[in-house]
């Protein structure tokens, strides 16, 4: 389990993580989403023991990762731009990991090498961006970590490799209870694989919730009213966003579908429709509610 308590990380005058707290359960796949500069990568680096927190803590199975070997032996981190020494091949990197991580599994690594179309003797820096990511994934999974921290891991992978990666990660989670944290802007991919999602914004966590609960707990409503009632009547909904155009009302509200439908029927709309939200729509709605000026950015 990853237990984050009041975690704060500053870079000079900039506070990248501002007193954030949440938990990631063991054996879950946790998606980190958020605007650029929200602190997702900073959180992953702090959880991986790269950064020392300025305040608060991030505990992995009860231990602080910074300079704590017993914790770091079970954690693998793949950054948004994985590093490889200039002349290193995949076999060289496997050699480094095998002599560093105590649970290195040679057979598992060989199996994964057979799944991904990589030349193990080619210099990794001569490979494409997507293949470099595959190399980093192979090394990390060969180390058999209990916690895998991935930053923008889908970036550069072709659709087939993305599916393969998702399948392997799901297998690792179901087979041996590995915990995965993925920071990504690719919400479509996260939606497929994550069971929990946390939304970061300006160094804080807006929410962390189960994905199903999240998707069921927020809905988009399109309704037509003749005549259009006063705007204040919509206050009965737990509104995230609200837009009106003529007699058409388009809003996103939190709550169960039944609850929203019940309240909507009280207003006698001429026409109404309840639409499920994609994760991307949830993200945009929540960000908008958090003060992210999306209209201004997109205009």
């Amino acid at each position: 389990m990853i237990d984050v308590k009041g975690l704060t990380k500053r870079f000079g005058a900039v506070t990248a993580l501002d007193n954030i707290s949440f938990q990631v359960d063991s054996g879950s796949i946790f998606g980190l989403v958020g605007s650029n500069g929200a602190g997702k990568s900073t959180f992953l680096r702090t959880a991986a023991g790269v950064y020392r927190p300025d305040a608060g803590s991030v505990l992995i199975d009860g231990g602080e990762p910074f300079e704590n070997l017993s914790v770091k032996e079970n954690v693998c981190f793949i950054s948004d731009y994985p590093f490889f020494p200039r002349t290193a091949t995949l076999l060289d990197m496997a050699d480094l990991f095998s002599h560093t991580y105590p649970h290195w599994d040679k057979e598992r690594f060989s199996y994964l090498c057979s799944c991904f179309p990589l030349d193990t003797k080619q210099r990794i820096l001569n490979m494409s961006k997507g293949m470099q990511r595959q190399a980093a994934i192979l090394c990390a999974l060969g180390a058999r970590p209990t916690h895998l921290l991935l930053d923008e891991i889908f970036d550069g992978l072709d659709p087939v490799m993305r599916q393969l990666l998702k399948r392997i990660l799901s297998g690792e989670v179901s087979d041996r209870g590995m915990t995965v944290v993925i920071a990504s802007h690719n919400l479509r991919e996260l939606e497929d694989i994550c069971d929990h999602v946390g939304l970061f914004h300006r160094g804080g966590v807006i929410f962390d919730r189960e994905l199903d609960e999240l998707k069921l707990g927020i809905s988009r409503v399109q309704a037509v009213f003749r005549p259009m009632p006063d705007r204040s009547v919509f206050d009965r909904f737990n509104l995230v966003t609200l837009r009106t155009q003529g007699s058409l009302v388009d809003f996103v509200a939190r709550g169960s579908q039944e609850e929203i439908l019940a309240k909507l029927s009280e207003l006698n709309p001429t026409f109404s429709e309840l639409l499920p939200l994609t994760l991307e729509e949830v993200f945009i709605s929540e960000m908008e509610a958090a003060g992210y000026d999306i209209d201004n950015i997109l205009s």
Partner: protein
Amino acid sequence: MTSTTFSPKPGGFFQSYRTALRQIRGVTLLYTAILAVALPLLLIFTLAQAKTNFPLYTPDMTQTEYMARQADNYLNASMPWFILPLLWLFALIFTVSLFRYLHDKRSVDLFHSLPVRRENLLLGRLAAEVTALAVPLLAMELLCLLILLIFGVPLQEPLELGALWLRIFFLLLDTLALLGLMIFFLVCCGTVFDAVISTVAFCAGLPLLVLLSTSYVETALPGYAGDSVPMFLYRAMNPFLGAIILSHTVTASVLLWWFLYAAVLLTAGVLLYRRRPSESAENAFAFPIPRVLIRFMVSACFGMMLGLLVHSIYPYFPFLFSALLGAFLAHLAMEAVYRRGVKGIWKTMRAYAVVAGLFVAFYLVCATGCFGYTNRIPAADEVQTVTFSTSYGTEHTIMLHTIDERGILTGYNTQLSIASQQENIEKVIALHQDIIDCYQTMGPLYPMSEGSSFEVSYMLKDGSVLRRRFYSTGFPADYEKKIQELSTLPEILENKIDCFLLTSESFDSVSLYDINEGGDYQSVSLDVHERAALVEALQADYLSGNALTNYYWNDYDVELSLTYQGDSSLPVSIAEDSALRTVLQLPDHEQLYLRGESYPISQKTFPNTLRVLQEIGAVS
């Protein structure tokens, strides 16, 4: 089934060591190949050539001895001129290769997330670098010894194997100190560029700071005799300058110093690395130490440099202004380099204000006589001997030497005026006091020094020495007259002019060259009375002042040279309680010799000597 190649590890040191060694194996092979050419291969050529040349050059020693000497010369000569630069070059290459990960965010992400302690990550890499540098060198040196044995050269005298291994050990320690310095700055800085700039500025700046500070104090502090700064200060923290010791004997204290220096730097590097924020990679600095240190050193150096330069060109311009201007410009330049621009540079003016404040304080301390340093003068009864010299009074030099059983000469030279009689010491102190009084009339801020110098050194009865040097800026009006009076005191002359050390036993013949008649030197043998009379006449001519005041080598009649049994060295006897013996620290139980001297004899300069030569019939 899980298969693991993992073995127990103490924090990942061996893993880091192994990985680093693999990373630099290619360059290590290149380094080894170069060493193989420089040491065993060229040694083979040297020995083969020595074997061929032996009958042509050295019939007075055995072939084995000749080859051993040639091999010893080659191995020792290769160290300062080849091995050391090679070690420095590859130390730089290895260090940049192994430690640049500190300055790249991506590599920091990888290495700092691995389950390896930071100190082990650093020390493992350092150990790999030391292994890559030292093992090939030691192997090649051992191979050289094997080659010597194959050529039939025994590993004994004249081969100095002990000294050779000491020098190799010094090379490795000096390189380790360089590694320590580079790693310290690499840890403190956020980029390789800043680390390189900082290392170069430190190595060049520190000796320059000592040199300029000494020059400045000598100029600004009346009385300061600046050449007393030990060379240790210049070399102690700079492995490049420290290698100059290779031209001398490597001692245990030198080895100990470089070992401690390297150990302190590496310990500091490791301790700082443990606290080094990972996010400092690609930023300017992880710790402000180098920035503060280098900025201060460069500002201080350029400040003093500009101040002294302007003073030497135009002495009326206030030194402090030009020094502060130089420090300001250097401060801006360093900040611009470290900041990669001038944005926000004005925020660092507080740091400049500290440098400027130190400059002003340093200037005030020097220009007011450094808390009584300038005014300090001993009482006459505290002084055992006093010596003085002027920057233009160098026409008389006493050059004594001893000769040991192997024929090696040890020289004792002086151009000083020496006095030990109480009344003469008082006269020197009186002149010293006049100079101080003159400076005090110019106060409260003494002027910067320039012009000719007067240096006085008191050997006190408590064993200490008080040295002061003043410049003509602060000389009293009658200085020339007083220095002339002091210079012609009988005791001064007796300790300064070689003929006062001669006795009738110091020479047995004289050679004379008549400049008017030309021809060859005429040698004349003299009896003991004639020699005594000649010595007495020479001394009388100096004491009368004739030989001093009209001392022109192109205006004489006869050149007189003294010889002893055909040798130009003249044995002399100097009293046990002589001031000259004390000042020159002459050995008590060894025969002293004076280099044979020539005297330009004329009626005007040496009337007494000429009269004696005429009486004994040596000249007409």
